[in-house]
């Protein structure tokens, strides 16, 4: 739902403000912050790929005589109510979390982007029809969509991914459509048409590539927040019980211990926050880097 929110907001606003075609001002990032973000992502990706090299303990090792230990020498981030090492669980949970984050954004943006692109390309009837459908879907809270998906397909990791993706589709669609509409009337597009290029090839070669960068920004926020959507679902009791829980599930499961053992859910929360921050900072930078105007040679 969180991704939905973000994406929806940016999508709609962009759509409406598309008339003011000037690109968003750069959200230029101090070098140090960028470096830190790259580092964070690198570490998290490493956690996802080779957790066994990083985690000090097994994430499933329930040391029942060491439950609820505060952060200390032997357990840097403490232990949880099973006696698992919190650090190790977080490290191992990275794989699932990153997967939820990235997969749902990829699915959502591909599907939404395609709808938006079709709508923007054909315009007219097709456009107004698709946009009416998108309008309709937007009035249904993301929670309901997510719950419905979870309920239809049964519990599972892909569910969360699909649920989040589904809820974000209207937003990507709207965003890309708005972007394409404003791009379609640019003079380099007319220029290409005037030399006799076919409509479809103009669309593929000029309109689309120039319309994608705001999608990137939206996706950057989406990646981080879909993990939270997952946690929202597990809060509502629709999560999956996995041997190695993802961060969202850790947060949701550990919330009851906030007053007695704050470290259980504070550190996974911090992991999510760091991840969101880093992805967003890198996303902004990446958008600039992909823009030949802004990349410095």
């Amino acid at each position, binding site marked *: 739902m969180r991704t939905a929110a973000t994406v929806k907001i940016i999508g709609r606003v962009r759509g409406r403000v598309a008339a003011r075609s000037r690109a968003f001002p750069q959200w230029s990032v101090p070098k140090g912050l960028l470096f830190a973000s790259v580092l964070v992502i690198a570490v998290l990706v490493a956690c996802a790929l080779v957790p066994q090299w990083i985690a000090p303990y097994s994430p499933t090792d329930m040391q029942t005589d060491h439950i609820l230990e505060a952060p200390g020498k032997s357990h840097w981030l403490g232990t949880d109510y099973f006696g698992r090492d919190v650090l190790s669980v977080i490290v191992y949970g990275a794989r699932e979390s990153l997967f939820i984050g990235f997969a749902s954004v990829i699915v959502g943006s591909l599907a939404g982007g395609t709808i938006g692109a079709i709508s923007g390309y054909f315009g007219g009837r097709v456009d107004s029809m698709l946009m009416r459908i998108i309008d309709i879907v937007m009035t249904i809270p993301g929670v309901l969509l997510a719950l419905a998906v979870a309920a239809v397909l049964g519990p599972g990791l892909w569910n969360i991914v699909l649920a989040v993706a589904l809820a974000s589709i209207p937003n990507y669609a709207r965003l890309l459509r708005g972007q394409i509409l404003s791009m379609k009337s*640019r003079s*380099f597009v*007319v220029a290409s*048409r005037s030399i*006799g290029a076919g409509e479809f090839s103009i669309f593929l070669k000029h309109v689309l*590539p120039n319309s994608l960068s705001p999608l990137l920004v939206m996706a950057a926020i989406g990646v981080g927040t879909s993990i939270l959507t997952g946690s929202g679902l597990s809060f509502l009791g629709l999560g999956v019980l996995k041997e190695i829980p993802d961060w969202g599930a850790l947060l949701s499961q550990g919330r009851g211990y906030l007053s007695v053992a704050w470290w259980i859910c504070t550190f996974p929360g911090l992991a999510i926050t760091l991840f969101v921050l880093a992805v967003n900072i890198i996303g902004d930078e990446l958008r600039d880097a992909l823009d030949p*105007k802004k990349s410095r040679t």
Partner: protein
Amino acid sequence: MSHILDIERLSVDFATARGTLQAIHDVSFSIESGEIVCLVGESGSGKSVTSKAIMRLIDEENGSITSGAIKVDGIDISDLSKLSLQSLRGKKMAMVFQEPMAAFDPVFTIGSQIVETICRHDHNSTANQAWQRGVELLRRVGIPEPELRMKAYPGELSGGMLQRAMIAMALSCEPELLIADEPTTALDVTIQAQILQLLQELKTEYRMSVLLITHDLGIAAQIADRIVVMYAGKIVEQATAEELFTQPHHPYTQGLLQSITTLDSDKSQRLYAIPGSIPGLADLPEGCRFHPRCPYASERCAREAPELQDRDGRQSACWNVGQLLEGSERGKTEVIGAMRVGETDRTLQPLIELSHVTKHYPVGGSFFSRAHKVIQAVDDVSFSIRKGETFGLVGESGSGKSTLGRVMLQLERPTSGSVRFEDQQLTALSGARLREARKHMQMIFQDPYGSVDPRWKVGDIIGEPFAVHGNVRPSEKREQVEELLQLVGLSPSAYDRYPHEFSGGQRQRIGIARAIALRPKFILADEAVSALDVSVQAQIVNLLQDLRQQLNMTLLFIGHGLNVVRYVSDRIGVMYLGKLVEIAPSERLFLRPAHHYTRGLIASVPIPDPNRRREFASVEGEIPSPANPPSGCRFRTRCPAATARCAVEAPALRAIGSDHFVACHDPL
């Protein structure tokens, strides 16, 4: 004489991501009260920075005054506190900007923005008084129905009106110094003339000092008492208008003056253009900053930067003034082949023929109501362009020139009427056949920045026509593109670079290279040079002329710079509110305009000769809305010779001489 403004050795730095840039260096000049001083120079020479430095507006853009002083009425602005600065701005000195549309806050009414200014500086006046004053001011600058306009939002007024309102706002606290940064560049010639007229009146009426920034030497010649020439952040020359135009003391000034296309430029001669382009601040040349482009440059120029020196009561910064004064003009004009000896041959076959072309854009209307309101962008236009000729199309903004061009190339379908190209009825073609036909008709766009895809490499942009139309192998493509690059005067190494790495003039060359890639028979140049500096404009115009001749193309040249259009065209059509009002061979049109509108247009063009100053404002009022054009003759509302007949009967285009057509009941 008291100096209202005194700038002493001013330097301004900007802090940017890539380090500090010095935008202006050691600039000194002054303005006396009641004097109009023009600051001229190519784009990027530092004119605006100078003006903003005077207001200390550069503070907001990471700029800072690193040395020197700016004295306004004796007060040094350069190290004034923010607060006292704010109370000076608008009161002591006021500013008028280039884009009137963008210079007002769009969400407040004109009135409230004027009142805001008055109340800010005059604490005694009540809001009501301020409002009354605003109404007075608007009336003074010639806005009809000022009470009504006060309540209008910026978006509801035309550019000309907004510029007047902006001037009214600047005048609201009776400043002693008015700084106008390109106040007319965004406006039509007729409106420009009105505004310049207004400035002159105000100067005499209020004894105001004016610093007018412009790149149009014509304007400077018409209005300035004194002219300051800037180049790459430095002042290179300073003199009274007469002195400067009679005898420039700096090769740059000389080059500028020569680059101007005037209403009597010799059409058989190439336009003069200063070679090269103005350097960026990050890579300024050693020594004299102009030396790489200077025909007089010596070794010394490359080593040592010349100081601004007094000579005969004027100043210039050049080591070679003496040499220049001796008058040996190097690299001046050259005769262009044997091409344009006279007018085009009337017996030539038409290449393109338009008959009764009309283009209406529906406005308003929703799902339920079929739109009944339309913008008549082009209304019943018929004419033909002959093989090999250059046809010019002029008219004020919104008169439908671009629309006509687009309809010609079938980028848009006409509402009615037909376009014939050679033996093909273009309006009947579609799909692949139309795309095939486009091979022979190409377009050069006005905006050199927007008309190339920023994500494509130059080589791909220019090579796109090959990709679209053909069977060209990649190696061949590279070869051909490099050839084209050379043809338009770019280095083949541009192939792998991105458009943003090029200057405006260079980008326009990229656009031209693409347009000529397939050797089309017909090229439409829609304001192809309007966005460029005078000297670059000359380069591009020369290039177009050369190419046209080499490739034997037919050209439709749309522009609002009448002098350039006159220079390039064989015949010219004049449009007004979607109608073609006059067609004539270009010399004849300027010598003997038949339509009142044409005459007004021509009279509005500033003449770059201080000795031939004249009254501006030859066409009164503004162009009406094309959604609701006047009945009968569309020009009648602004026509000095309008009669009752004009209101009821629309004049048809009729011949009044050899090759000369006009749509007027009482032609001149």
